[in-house]
């Protein structure tokens, strides 16, 4: 969807424009940002420089000071101010995930794709990450979340699409998804689904 892999079939449209076949840098300039499950910092650069890169190239800041201002804002928003001048390679995993979010924010995105941002974090870190994601969403950024931690999905999402072996098996609000038979079958197995169906029928 962000141009890293070319789709073999179908099309991707954004804001009325077809974006499949576009290069990643072109898509990023349209306002579609993404983070990776495996973090992708520029290891030798400081946190500030890391966040300035998208501000300069994707968001098209006209001057260094403008880029720095935008980067500082994103850094402060994600609580990385203490680490502003440390090299990205010295951050903890949670810190690097925040850095990824800061980089995405500095792109001034309209749509943000988060690919398992919470993977590898401990429960306390997940709590803070959730707050940040909520805060980003409240700024009017559409967030597409790819996640298998149910706690995260259920507390954040307004609309859920469930994929099983690459095919869509359900779509709807969180409370609809938890009641969906094919979702239960896919995740908890056949027998549980049947038992569950029997139970609900009893009630």
């Amino acid at each position, binding site marked *: 969807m962000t141009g890293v892999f070319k789709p073999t079939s179908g099309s991707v449209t954004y804001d009325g424009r077809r974006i499949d076949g576009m290069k990643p840098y072109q898509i990023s300039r349209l306002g579609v940002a993404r983070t990776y499950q495996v973090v*992708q910092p*520029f290891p030798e650069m400081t946190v500030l420089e890391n966040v300035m890169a998208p501000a300069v190239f994707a968001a098209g800041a006209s001057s260094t000071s403008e880029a720095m201002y935008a980067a500082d804002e994103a850094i402060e928003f994600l609580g990385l101010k203490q680490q502003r001048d440390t090299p990205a390679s010295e951050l903890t995993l949670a810190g690097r995930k925040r850095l990824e979010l800061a980089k995405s924010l500095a792109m001034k995105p309209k749509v943000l794709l988060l690919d398992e941002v919470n993977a590898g974090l401990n429960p306390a870190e997940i709590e803070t990450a959730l707050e940040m994601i909520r805060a980003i969403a409240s700024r009017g950024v559409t967030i597409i979340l790819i996640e298998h931690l149910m706690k995260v999905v259920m507390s954040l999402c307004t609309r859920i699409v469930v994929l099983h072996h690459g095919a869509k098996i359900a779509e709807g609000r969180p409370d609809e998804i938890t009641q969906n038979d094919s979702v239960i079958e896919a995740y908890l197995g056949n027998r549980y689904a049947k038992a569950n169906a029997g139970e609900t029928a009893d009630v």
Partner: protein
Amino acid sequence: MKHPLIGLCFFAVIAFLPVFGDNYILRLGTMFAMYAVLSQSWNIIGGYAGYPSFATAAFFGLGAYTGAILQGLGLAMPLAWAAAGLMAAAFAAAMGAAILHLKGHYFAIASLVLAEVLLEITTSWTSLTGGGMGLNLPIIRMSVGAQARLFFWSMLVLAVLTFLMSWYVSAGRIGFALRCIRQNEDASSMVGINTTLYKVIAFVLSALFVGSAGALYASWVFYIEPPDVYSVMTTIRPIVMTMLGGPGTLLGPLIGSGIFLIIEEVVWRNFLSIHAAVLGILIVGLIFYLPNGVVGAAMRRLRNRSDKKTEGTTT
């Protein structure tokens, strides 16, 4: 901001060499300036962008032949030098677009082949280049001393131009993009960098002044032949010099050129038969002990010292 000033002081010191009036010193000064052009140019693609280019000899030889042929047709020397630079840059743009999607070893081999192909073409195209017989350049009617000074000053100006170009690159948007590409090319493209465009720009900038230096070299030595100007050593030297000084830094290539020239003069003149072995040992030593060159080692030492200082104040 203090870096560029140090670099300019460096050139100012070199500019005082003619005071000695010795032609040997002038020759060394001219060689230093030429090495500075080559290593600073390689630093753009090899240092900042991290693409191991082995194409320096291709640009140098192409520039030398372009300059020599144009001068043979009666074009004034400075114009021939400028045209040679543009020719090398155009060649780099075309070839860069073709081979810069390769990475690591694959790119290195593809860039190495460029010089080989040009060498073959130059050798076979006898009607234009004189083939293996080489090419003589028009004689300049000037005293030997005046000639030495002319080429010294011209090469030094070219080195300063290359330095100003490096400065512009390192301080601006291009250098920022190239540093991102070196560290993580996929992430660079995700943050909105047109990686292909910036890589081609880097390749072109690494060719422009090398082409002019080749033409200047041809005018300087009056006679060129394919194996001389397309020599593998022309490719290897700037890489070793930049690694020695500090790749991806503004001053590294200058410092490396200076150190390399001294090693070349002192050691190689005394151990003529084993100078290849000395170069080999130097490269191995570099990889083991100075992975970021002299500048890298100095910066690390400075950083450690300042870290200790801040620790000292907090405790």
